[in-house]
């Protein structure tokens, strides 16, 4: 029992040391989303999360109505029902606050351009802002009932940008949750 307690204390100490170490250079933002103007600016978070804002507030968030979305009007076989970017906590709108390509460059930061700028026509992008559950129930042979490695949001399991992307993820190409080798990411859902 004493041995177990000792092992536990060693583990706790190690975890604490790791936590302190990572506070110095937070690995969660060591990626393309680290938009610090320079070494003098302390928080990589502030670009998206204003320190004086309400908890969870995001600096720039697009409004849903401006976007043309991928829904049944684009592909008749789409079964996700009504597409609404403002549901599911509006998590896709958080991304589109910058990635709609309309954000003016600010001091030290340039607006997303090239492949990172999606514009406001999302009809040629993978659908977001719909219930995966609803889609899956309508097409059980085409969609996995238990998607692997990706994240769905809310009680009706909505598919948003963050389903595939983890914006804080370091070191993964295109900040993806699942490696694309052998199309692992696509095949998480598509049967």
């Amino acid at each position, binding site marked *: 029992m004493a041995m177990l307690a000792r092992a536990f204390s060693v583990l706790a100490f190690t975890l604490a040391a790791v936590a302190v170490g990572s506070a110095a250079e937070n690995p969660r933002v060591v990626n393309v989303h680290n938009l610090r103007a320079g070494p003098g600016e302390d928080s990589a978070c502030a670009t998206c999360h204003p320190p004086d804002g309400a908890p969870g507030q995001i600096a720039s968030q697009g409004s849903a109505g401006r976007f043309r979305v991928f829904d049944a009007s684009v592909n008749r076989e789409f079964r996700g029902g009504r597409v609404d970017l403002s549901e599911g906590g509006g998590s896709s709108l958080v991304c589109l606050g910058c990635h709609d390509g309309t954000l003016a460059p600010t001091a030290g930061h340039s607006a997303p351009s090239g492949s990172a700028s*999606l514009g406001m026509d999302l009809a*040629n*992008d993978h659908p977001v802002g719909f219930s995966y559950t609803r889609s899956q129930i309508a097409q059980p042979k085409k969609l996995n*009932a238990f998607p692997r490695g990706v994240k769905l949001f809310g009680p009706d399991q909505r598919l948003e940008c963050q389903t595939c992307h983890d914006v804080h993820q370091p070191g993964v190409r295109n900040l993806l949750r699942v490696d694309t080798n*052998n199309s692992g990411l696509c095949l998480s859902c598509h049967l």
Partner: protein
Amino acid sequence: VNTAKPHAAAFFWICLAVQFLIIGAASPFAQSKSLVLGTLHDLRGSGCSVCHNLHGGPPVKGPGDVCGACHTPHRANPAASPLLWVRAIRPGTYQTYDRSVNSEFAGGDVNLSQVSLLCMSCHDGAVALNVDFTGTANAAYVGLVMHGSGRLGTDLRGSHPIGFSYSVSQSANPGRLATVPPPALRLYGPESKLECPTCHDVHNPTNAPFLRMGQQNSALCVGCHL
């Protein structure tokens, strides 16, 4: 208190059974898209060996994403967005099998639907297999133009007709065409049009060449042709 435990256990086993039922029901179809890995529609890599068996061995595929040779999650060709297509499509450039080829053809107007145009974006042999609709080459995929038997060109008058209404054809020839094609085959749109993917399942190599059903005793042909 004592009765709660058997109830909880029963609930657990019922949940497990339901889960297996769902997985079991889905299993004949599970991962059918992944069947494309290693096939001729898997264009990952460079050089001849991506498609051709050199020295009797299997084709050599590169690493990475299979789907990306045809599909893209972002910035797809706006002219072919329903399937998030990455290649250029060329409507209006194909000579089709119609009444001018065979006076008995009764399928009415012939217009390739988008699903067939997607196939032709590679199989007309006009553009290298790894060049997207913006003209940019993707180094992850083989950079050659379609050649050999897969290259149909732009003159499709020597291929089985596509882009016509099966139901129009069938009602004109009720004794020669099945009222409804075999369930494995697919017709497209409100006009029940016959297109490339009527016979071909591009992700599934089980019945070569990517056919939706076996050709033993010409089952595929006689499924429609009486």
